[in-house]
């Protein structure tokens, strides 16, 4: 699959409402990753990755560990050199441009603040490297710290700040240089759940306000789906799908994406000439697959695409219930020791207790056939 990602960005600190695009910002450069290959020994970290990101867009690179997302980010930042392929910024090949000349701000997973500098000096570091005078860089550092809500902590050293505060300072530091592209390498991974949600919302608000083109690397699908304009799902150095979050969830291009994004059930079905028979219902199949007629395959069905009803004698038994507020998830054991998850409104699920015999049905108008465990289908 060959896709291109165009990135452009611009930054500005005009006093506008957070989350509202600032129209006075300069439009940044476009960035294209073209057919990138990067091998580490026998491991293919990037295997022909190509991508284009739109100006001012926030694109997440999402995938399991080792899928190449961080390598792609490091190649874009100039910390790593691809074996082949190009990185274009504004149409210009920046392959030979050293990292310090790329004008790309980066926030790292591990707290990367300089321990010998306080928050203000950390934020001002990039400006200092650009020869900005002391008074001006202090003023701008104060503006940035104000923007991330840490002006009172300006004179504190990294070891005196919490993890969330350190990452906000790191974000301010990356934005202070008005980067052409903002690169976020799993910046929320080391934070606790509450701070993670707060900070990701803050990142999104700032990004929308500054219209900074942003590449966000994460293995957390919730993070990716909640803040991205588009999500790029990667696997084994290749792009599986690039799409807006809603389409990624509703119309996954591959079984891998379907299983990786959101919760997905694997339910045994029988292949027929017009699709599959799953839970007693004939359902068309999306995408192509080749199996012998009448053979058994696993199909992918989301928890909300299943119906459940309590019956005297059913094909399944409720094994457990998990309360999620308005929705309750029921774990149902089917014949053949297959457990599936079914989402019901909490009100409807109240009458179904663990141990109850139930009958499941399929609501989905079409299903995908899952890749057999441990195999990968070529597309």
């Amino acid at each position, binding site marked *: 699959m060959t896709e291109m990602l165009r990135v452009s960005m611009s930054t500005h600190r005009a006093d506008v409402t957070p989350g509202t695009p600032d129209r006075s910002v300069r439009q940044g450069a476009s960035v294209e990753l073209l057919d990138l290959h990067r091998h580490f020994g026998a491991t293919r970290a990037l295997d022909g990755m190509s991508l284009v990101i739109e100006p001012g867009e926030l694109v997440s690179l999402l995938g399991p560990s080792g899928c190449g997302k961080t390598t792609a980010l490091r190649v874009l930042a100039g910390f790593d050199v691809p074996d082949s392929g190009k990185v274009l910024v504004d149409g210009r090949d920046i392959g030979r441009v050293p990292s310090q000349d790329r004008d790309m701000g*980066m926030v790292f997973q591990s707290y990367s603040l300089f321990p010998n500098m306080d928050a203000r000096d950390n934020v001002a570091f990039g400006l200092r490297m650009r020869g900005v005078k002391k008074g001006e860089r202090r003023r701008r550092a104060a503006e940035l710290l104000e923007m991330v809500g840490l002006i009172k902590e300006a004179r504190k*050293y990294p070891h005196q700040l919490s993890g969330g505060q350190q990452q906000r300072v790191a974000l301010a530091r990356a934005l202070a240089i008005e980067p052409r592209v903002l690169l976020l390498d799993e910046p929320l991974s080391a934070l606790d759940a509450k701070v993670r949600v707060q900070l990701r919302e803050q990142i999104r608000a700032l990004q929308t306000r500054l219209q900074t083109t942003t590449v966000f690397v994460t293995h957390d699908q919730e993070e990716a789906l909640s803040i991205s304009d588009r999500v790029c799902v990667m696997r084994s150095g290749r792009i599986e799908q690039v799409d807006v979050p809603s389409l990624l969830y509703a119309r996954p291009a591959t079984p891998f994406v379907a299983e990786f994004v959101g919760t997905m059930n694997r339910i045994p079905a029988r292949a027929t000439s017009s699709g599959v028979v799953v839970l007693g219902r004939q359902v068309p199949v999306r995408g192509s697959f080749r199996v012998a007629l009448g053979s058994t395959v696993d199909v992918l069905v989301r928890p909300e695409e299943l119906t459940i009803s309590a019956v005297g004698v059913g094909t399944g038994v409720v094994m457990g219930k998990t309360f999620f507020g308005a929705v309750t998830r029921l774990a149902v054991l089917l014949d053949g020791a297959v457990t599936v998850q079914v989402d019901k409104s909490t009100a409807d699920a109240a009458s179904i207790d663990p141990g109850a015999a139930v009958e499941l049905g399929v609501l989905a108008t079409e299903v995908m056939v899952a890749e057999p465990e441990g195999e990968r289908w070529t597309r």
Partner: protein
Amino acid sequence: MVVPVVAADTALRRDGDTSAGGRSASLSWRRIRAWRGIVLGLTGIFFLLPLYAALRFALENNLGHLTLAAFSAIPHTTGFIPAFLLSVRLAAVTMAITMALIVPTTIYVHVKYPKLLVAFDAITFLPVGIPPIVLIIGVLQSAPFVLKSTPYLLALEYVILAMPFAYRSLDAGLRAIELKTLVDASRSLGGSWLATLWRVIVPNLRSAFLSAMILTLALVFGEFTMASLDLYTTLPVWVVNTDSITAHVSVAVSFLSLALTWVLLLALSSVDRRRFARRALIVEGT
């Protein structure tokens, strides 16, 4: 280590645990504490007894009276000042060359070739195993001609000798910081290699530098074999030579040399600690 033991012991007694198990645990803790005391005491005696003997010898005159005569005679004893100044000069040059060579090399290997660290580690150990005479011949063969008839030749030999200690101090310091991330962060913000080294890495290695320098200093002020073989009268050589003439003065100098190293170590570490304390105070005040 003592505090938890005392706390546990106190807790047991406060709880009024008079059961057989409680008494047994209490007895066991007392035994552990007693053994700790014995081991610490024996170690202390092992290190402090010779120092006490040296101090006592330096302070006693031939009649067995305590006097500071040996100490006050040090500056006036023949050859002391030149030997001391030579050692100071050699220490300064050795520290400068060691820092200039080892610091960038160690950082470079850590950042660019971390897989080579094992090999680098082994290489830096070589001076410990190679006989001094072999090192001297090696340095003599490769040293610039202009240095061959000067005592600074010794400094080059000391640089090799100090390498295992200086490298290990810096290596420990570098492992304690997130070097790769800090370098990447600095580079992404526009920092050149030099700026990254000077403004980001070096300030975060201050303790490692101090440690490396003190170890180098201690080595120069204590090394005898090479200086003796090279026929230069450094402080340790002077101490040995003077021992046969005025043993009290010689021992007094040895004692002072050791004390000086300790004082320097304490002073440097306390300066470092005060710097952090001041930084914390500034923050508290804002």
